Structures are given as structure tokens and as C-alpha cells.
């Protein structure tokens, strides 16, 4: 069952983020993905997240697809102008990538090539619009294409916002829906309570909201996120659980597993599991889901 048909049928989808390597040795990426092939509905392949240079999402996604795994290729506004974006989107479709997720992309300033120029020729909404246009069989210049792609299009929504910020986010979310976005990935969520304001206005049983479940690796990581990352909140009792556990890694995996079960019970459309380097823990994280 494809990701598209699974989401359309209202079944719970399991997505996992899997970074392409910083280099050309793809064995670890493939091995980690192969361990959960069949259990994960599709792998989200990030486009140089945090502006750290690595193999492209297109390359990573093509490699996974060639091993029989479905992917969601990320595409962002940071590194390419209109020509390159359209060219790579067409290439992706012809190489078998049927799911695409559009983002703005972190500024190069925060990455490992801080002297690089950000492109940002088009905005995120314009990128989503571009994907819509391409699917009509024309390019941004209105010129006819030979054949047209057909994607399941996703994007991001920051469900942790509140007040005015949330209003602006919801307005943008509506525009994304109008432009053909079918599912939304949230930043890491550790509890449903943290997005109460969002859920008061968005029916997550109707709109395909897919929370990101981030595998905590340590107490330090949890505390760091609480201190430094806006709109991400790791509950204190969760941190204490890790602190008190004899096997902290196992406890972190168990917490991720329980969060996923919780989201499933609450009727979300799926989850996006982010393990940032601990992809080998994926089989345990999705056990029994």
C-alpha cells in the first residue's frame, strides 16, 4: 500500500526520517532503512537539514527507491532557483519519487557552509504552487511539459505555536491546502497537551497532521531543547524517567514508542520518526505499532 493510499484510506502511516550521508558511502543509510523496510510506510529524506552539506535529498531518495522503499523527498527554497527546483522535481518524479515535501530551508548562516549565499528566489508557498503548476503539465513560464508529474504533496506546520503566531501559521496552512498540500509534518512533539491551542482550531482527524516523534538521546538533550528551542517542550516527568532509568537508551526508545502509540490512539494520520543518527533503533521504536 502506498503512502498516498494509506493516508487516503485513513490508516495510520509510519514515516521515518533518514539522512543521506555526508559523503558517498550509502551503506549505513541503506542498512538502517532495510532493517525497517516493510514496517515503515515511507522514508522522509531531508534536504540538507540545518543547512549542513550532505548528499542531496534527490540522490538519497533515488537510492532508497532503487531498493524498493517508498520515499518522501524534501525540497527547499534555500539552494536552488526556479529553474533548478523545477528541473529536480521533474527528475524526481521520473525516477519514481511520488511523494514530495516542501520547506523553506534553514539559512546557510547556521550550517557548516556559513559563507554560502542562500537562494530563496521563491517562497515556500510559491514552491508549493510550482509543484501544483507542474502537475497541470506546464512549467512556471507556462510552457507545456512532455508528460506531467503527479505527487502527494506535504509541507510543515508548527503546531506548537500560540496566540497571534498560531493565527499566522494557520493562515499559511490554509493557503498551503489551497495549493494542494495533503499532509503536514509538525516539529518534534512529546505530548498532545503541547499543541492544545492548535487542536482547538484544527481537526487532526480531518486534516492529515503527522507529528514528528524525536528520539531523545539523553537528559542533556531534552534539557537543551527545552532551554533553546522555541515551541518544543519535553515534559519534566519524561526527563525524570530517563534520569532514573538504569538503561537510559532503552528508556528513550520506550518513550518514543509510547508517544507514537499515544498519537495513534488520538487519531492522528501518522507519525514521522526522527532518530538523528540512531536509525538502528527504528525497529524497537516502531515495535507493536
Amino acid at each position: 500500500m502506498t503512502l498516498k493510499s494509506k493516508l487516503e484510506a485513513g490508516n495510520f502511516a509510519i514515516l521515518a526520517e533518514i539522512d543521506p550521508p555526508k559523503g558517498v558511502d550509502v551503506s549505513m543509510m541503506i542498512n538502517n532503512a532495510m532493517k525497517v523496510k516493510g514496517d515503515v510506510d515511507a522514508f522522509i529524506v531531508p534536504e540538507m537539514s540545518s543547512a549542513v552539506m550532505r548528499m542531496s535529498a534527490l540522490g538519497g531518495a533515488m537510492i532508497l527507491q532503487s531498493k524498493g522503499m517508498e520515499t518522501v523527498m524534501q525540497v527547499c527554497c534555500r539552494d536552488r532557483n526556479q529553474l533548478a527546483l523545477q528541473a529536480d522535481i521533474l527528475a524526481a518524479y521520473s525516477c519514481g519519487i511520488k511523494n514530495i515535501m516542501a520547506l523553506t530551508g534553514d539559512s546557510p548562516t547556521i550550517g557548516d557552509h556559513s559563507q554560502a549565499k542562500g537562494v530563496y528566489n521563491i517562497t515556500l508557498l510559491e514552491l508549493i504552487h510550482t509543484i501544483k503548476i507542474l502537475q497541470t503539465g506546464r512549467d512556471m513560464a507556462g510552457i507545456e511539459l512532455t508528460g506531467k508529474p503527479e505527487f502527494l504533496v506535504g509541507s510543515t506546520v508548527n503546531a506548537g505555536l500560540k496566540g497571534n503566531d498560531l493565527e499566522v501559521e494557520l493562515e499559511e496552512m490554509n493557503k498551503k491546502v489551497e495549493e494542494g498540500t495533503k499532509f503536514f509534518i509538525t516539529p518534534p512533539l512529546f505530548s498532545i497537551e503541547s499543541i492544545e491551542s492548535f487542536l482547538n482550531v484544527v481537526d487532526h482527524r480531518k486534516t492529515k497532521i503527522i507529528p514528528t516523534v524525536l528520539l531523545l538521546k539523553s537528559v542533556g538533550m531534552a534539557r537543551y531543547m527545552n532551554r533553546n528551542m522555541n515551541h518544543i517542550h519535553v515534559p519534566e516527568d519524561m526527563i525524570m524517567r530517563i534520569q532514573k532509568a538504569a538503561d537510559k537508551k532503552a528508556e528513550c526508545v520506550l518513550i518514543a514508542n509510547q508517544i507514537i502509540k499515544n498519537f495513534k490512539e488520538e487519531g492522528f494520520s501518522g507519525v514521522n520518526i526522527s532518530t538523528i543518527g540512531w536509525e538502528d533503533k527504528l525497529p524497537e521504536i516502531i515495535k507493536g505499532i
Partner: protein
Amino acid sequence: MIIADKKPIEEIIEAIKDYKKILILGCNECVTVCEAGGKKEVEILASALRMYFLNQSKDVKIDEKTLERQCDHEYLEEIRNTVENYDSILSLACGVGVQFTAEKYHSTPVFPGVNTCFLGATEERGVWVERCQACGKCILASTGGICPVSRCAKRILNGPCGGSSKGKCEINKDLACAWQLIIDRLKALGKLDEYEKITPIKDWSTDRAGGPRKVIREDVKQ
């Protein structure tokens, strides 16, 4: 200086058509020199708008004022006591002036009356040309005083590219190839050895890559 060009009057009218008391605010600096937003242009625009509103049978008050600069607090303070008489300001300053005015007078809508184009010079009366992109890291010392960042269509630092032909750029046959100009100039200066040196990849973090920029001078800061 900053080069600006007048906005089409239709665009200006569309922006201000619902206001009744409009102050047209000129700037006595760059936009005066490039004849886009100085006292003279304020007068001409004010007359045109008065005629337009008269034809529309609309009672709209249009006043004129030209400040020494709109990018300095002290000059913008000059309208502090009169700004409340207006429901909008049409600024003919560059984008900096428009924003500084808007920041200073929070509750008054401020509209731009010109398009801010580039950093340039007057080649001849009525012709202004781009000479600088304010990239934050000047390399003119090694390029014979000719800037490839602002004058080469591809902004390449080790040119010319394959599109240079008979001293002209591939994008426009009337446009001089910046790298041809650089080579000619270095030759005239007897410094062609400079051309042989490979310029490393440019650090764009001093350009817009690093986000909005700021220069802080502790020695002159008060």
C-alpha cells in the same frame, strides 16, 4: 549614491486612493541627485495627484515637505509636530528612508513613491548606472577598480566567462563585459599579473547571506 526611479503614478494612486490627508515627503540626498524624489519631484507629483483627485471630485489634502535626509533621526524629527495632521505619508526617499519614517511614526501609514534600484553613479544627465552591490567585502583593489560583483551579469570573480564576445556581455550586446574592462584596465596599469591570480570563493556571509547587516563602530558610537 542610491539610485531610485519614479513609480508609475497609477501604482501610487492605487496605494493612496483611500486617504484624505497626504504628506508627500521628499529627501534632499541621493534621490534628489537622481531626480526621483527631491523637492522638484515632490512638487510635480503633488500637482499631478491634486489634479487627479480634483478630476475624481475627491476632497484630498496634499501637502509637500522635503527633508534633508530621511535616513537620520534628527531630520525625521522635523515632522514630529505636524505628522498627526496627515492620515498617510507618501515618501519619495529610497527604501531606507521609507522604512525609517515608518519606524518613527508607527501609527501613520507610509507608502513608497519611488522604486529603489541600486548603488550607482550619474553617467550623464538622465542616465544612472550600477557600480556597487554593497557585498560587504570590497575586492576592487585586485580588479583594477572595476567591480565584477555589480557589473558582471554572472557576478563571477574569475572571468570572463564563455559568453564574453568582442568585449560585450552575452546577455546584452550593448553591455560591456566587466571582465574585459578589468583586463583592459589592469593592462593599462601594468598589473596584468593580478589577473593571473585565482580569486578564492567569495565569502557571501558579508552580503545578504548572513541576514540583515549592521555596522557597529565603537570609536564613534555614543
